[in-house]
């Protein structure tokens, strides 16, 4: 596959993932905005929520609500943040587990042996979901343990080096989970534990480590861009609204595309894996 075709295919495959983030993202966002509308709908300070002093204003909103033992809309905003976002994240995990199978099937070399996108989604949903659940726990345990161990080095090496090492470890662990997901498809197996072990052996090779470290950069970049959007010059301007909308969605799409590229990289890396396995068609 040429680079151009790979780019085109990964862009197309990113669309359903992006759309899922849009739909799921709208749930907590809508709840929060309902709260904010009743709290600030006609208040002159609402434009300042977009300014550099937004954290001061947000603090004031929370503290006045605490003082007054409640404020219209604040409970909705809190519900969106405390319940809505975590629920959406769990739902996104499930949706990703569904879409990942289709994306990996679409990226599998050899058109004749591929499942269709939606058939791939259906086929690999449960193994992929189990991998997401188990992988999430393993990621938290491993990254916490290794981060603590690396943190112990802070006596001898600078904090900057420690932080970079900790981030690098996390990037490799995340890559390991992507490899396991790709191995499920390439080896046509539903053995999550077995593929985690196989991916573990593969993930520690120099090339995969390099790949995941490199792919960690755009992932972090996308997150940074979302946290640091361009300043809003005039909160009462339609143009500023459009810019904010376009930037947010462009970043979200880039984020989705980055995920697909990571799956593509995992698929390529698993091609080099030496252990073949009999293909099992799952229901």
């Amino acid at each position: 596959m040429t680079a151009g075709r790979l780019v085109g295919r990964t862009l197309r495959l990113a669309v359903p993932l992006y759309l899922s983030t849009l739909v799921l993202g709208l749930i907590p966002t809508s709840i929060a905005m309902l709260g904010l509308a009743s709290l600030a709908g006609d208040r002159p300070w609402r434009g300042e929520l977009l300014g550099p002093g937004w954290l001061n204003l947000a603090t004031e909103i929370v503290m006045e609500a605490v003082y007054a033992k409640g404020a219209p809309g604040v409970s909705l905003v809190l519900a969106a943040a405390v319940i809505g976002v975590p629920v959406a994240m769990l739902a996104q995990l499930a949706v990703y587990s569904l879409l990942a199978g289709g994306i990996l099937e679409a990226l599998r070399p050899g058109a004749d042996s591929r499942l269709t996108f939606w058939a791939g989604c259906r086929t690999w949903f449960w193994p992929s979901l189990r991998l997401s659940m188990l992988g999430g726990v393993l990621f938290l345990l491993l990254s916490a343990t290794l981060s603590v161990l690396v943190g112990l080095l802070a006596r001898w090496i600078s904090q900057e080096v420690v932080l970079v090492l900790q981030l690098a470890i996390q990037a490799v662990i995340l890559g390991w989970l992507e490899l396991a997901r790709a191995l499920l498809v390439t080896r046509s197996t539903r053995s999550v534990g077995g593929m985690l072990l196989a991916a573990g052996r593969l993930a520690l090779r120099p090339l995969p480590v390099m790949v995941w470290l490199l792919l960690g950069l755009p992932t972090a970049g996308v997150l940074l861009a979302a946290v640091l959007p361009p300043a809003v010059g005039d909160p009462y301007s339609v143009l500023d609204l459009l810019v904010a909308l376009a930037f947010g969605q462009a970043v979200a799409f880039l984020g989705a595309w980055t995920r697909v590229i990571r799956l593509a990289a995992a698929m390529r890396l698993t091609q080099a894996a030496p252990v073949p396995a009999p293909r099992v068609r799952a229901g």
Partner: protein
Amino acid sequence: MTRSSQTGPAGRRRIAPVRAIILVGLLVAVSLGPIRGAHAQGSGTAAPASVDTASYDLTANWNASVNQIAGTATITYRNHSADTLGELYLKLYLNAFRSEDTLWMRESNGQHRGSDYDPHQPGWIRLERLRLLDTGEDVLPASIDPDATVLRVPLPAARAIRPDETVRLDVAWTSQLPRVFARTGVAGDFVMAGQWYPKLAVYDRGAWDTEPWHANAEFFADFGSYSLALTVPADYVTGATGTRQGSVTNPNGTVTVQYRADSVSDVAWTAWPGYRMATTVIEAAGRPVELELLAPRTMSQSEDKRYFGAAQGALDRLGRWFGAYPWPKLTLVVPAPDAPGAGGMEYPSLVTLDLPISAPFNLGRGVRLVEIVTVHEIAHQWVPLQLATNEAREAWLDEGFADYATTRVMGEMFGPDRSVVELGPFRLGYEEVHRTQYLLAAVNQPLAYPSWQYPDFVAYGATVYSKGTMVLLTLERTAGSERFLPAMRGHFDRWRWRHPTTADLQGSLEAGLGTSLDGFFRPLVYGTGVAEYGVGSASATQATVERRGDVALPIQVATVDADGRVERQSWSGDAARLDVAAQAGEIRRVQVDPDGSIAVEPLRLDDGRDLVPSPLPLATLAARILGLVQAALLAGLLG
């Protein structure tokens, strides 16, 4: 002095002869009457400005093996009052740390600013000699409560101290320093000695300050001259109140360092072999000031400029606003990493600070705790270290002032909305931090109130620091900085080297501003009044502004018409409501207190309304939040 005597310049003029008569009567009564005793709260005349009331020639011999100071002192007390004093009171602060059963410990539950008291390393002070130097008479009481933090010392009748007379005491004692706790103590070979010697209590307005030391309380002392001969192991680096006069190396491997300070109310010292020293000379409000930084050797030298920069920014601004820093030197002490309880305290010409936050890529510098603590402690160089307020009885006078001044200085140095945190899009100002504490625990607490009577440490801290700041900011903003700062300067000029009270501050500000502030001080300083305003009904032709609290403050009301024209009107704020009619065009926006002057108003978010609200700001915000949530959803996939 009664409150009613402070209702404004006219009122003062009317009662001035009456006060003079009362004063003369009091003087006569005192000179003919019995010797004055102790009272919980004086109500007589304030003592005149004096920098030689209580002077100390101190020696301190540090014994590192047992963490004890062997101290001697000649204390010279001059009676500047109009009363004859038949007794003295000594404050023995370290006894608060003798055991878990002391008053201080019972009040604090053995905790202070996040540090725990170590009962295995207690602190105490034991008087071993107390004589009248000139006659040799022993005045050490036969029985002393070992837990007492205040000691009554009766004087022989013939030795009662008449007005303008001086008494000299010859004192010897031993101080056991605790494991660092509540500002003082040891941690390994680090030593921070605060409140380490017997200190004379204050006699002012006809009474001794006999209050024991409480957990939610600091100190109160007279001014004088101090000399200190400090003997420590030769490898220790030392710092102390005042200026270093010289040092002598002793044959036993110790060094004796001499310090001297004038016009100060205390002396503290620190010693540690782990210190490194950096010095610089700055100009502050037209005067040179030597800055000496004592910091752990492990602290990066690149951090020094943060301490020096904050010190210069504070000394220069506070000097211009309230009068120049009066001493030639300021010592900045950054305690050892395992002694955080020693940080964040003011002594004359010496402040103890906090270590920088340790974070990679200098991210810690985006949180300006170093600067805030430095500026706050330096602000204390004005109150209580030039205006020696009673920090226990009216803590807001020094803590409220210090954080009001810190808010001002930090706002000028870094910007009001980012003076605490500036990390990319995360910016937080010190005023908002105080608003948080004020709203959490202080709105319904009085300010001028004994610190030990607040229900808990949170209420005490939130009130004296944060409500104090809100009250002073409100006073400044409603009066205007151009009038308020000179009025405050007048307060400093009038009360420097004295013991002003809240009433004296009110009197100074009333004199400076030319208006009565009784309607402000009575509910907001002495009482628990609430200033609250909001927009009631509003239409294109008329809007109603409502006073919803029990405190009336002068306030601005602004309306904006469809063409963006702003009409402002002043409202005394004392009626229940104000109707505002459209002037030229239709009203589109009503805003109470558009400049945010009423910092004490608890609910400020309801101060404005748009009559034709545009959905664009919230729509743009929704677009931003949506993008951020989507990115978070993708980041949360974990592989």
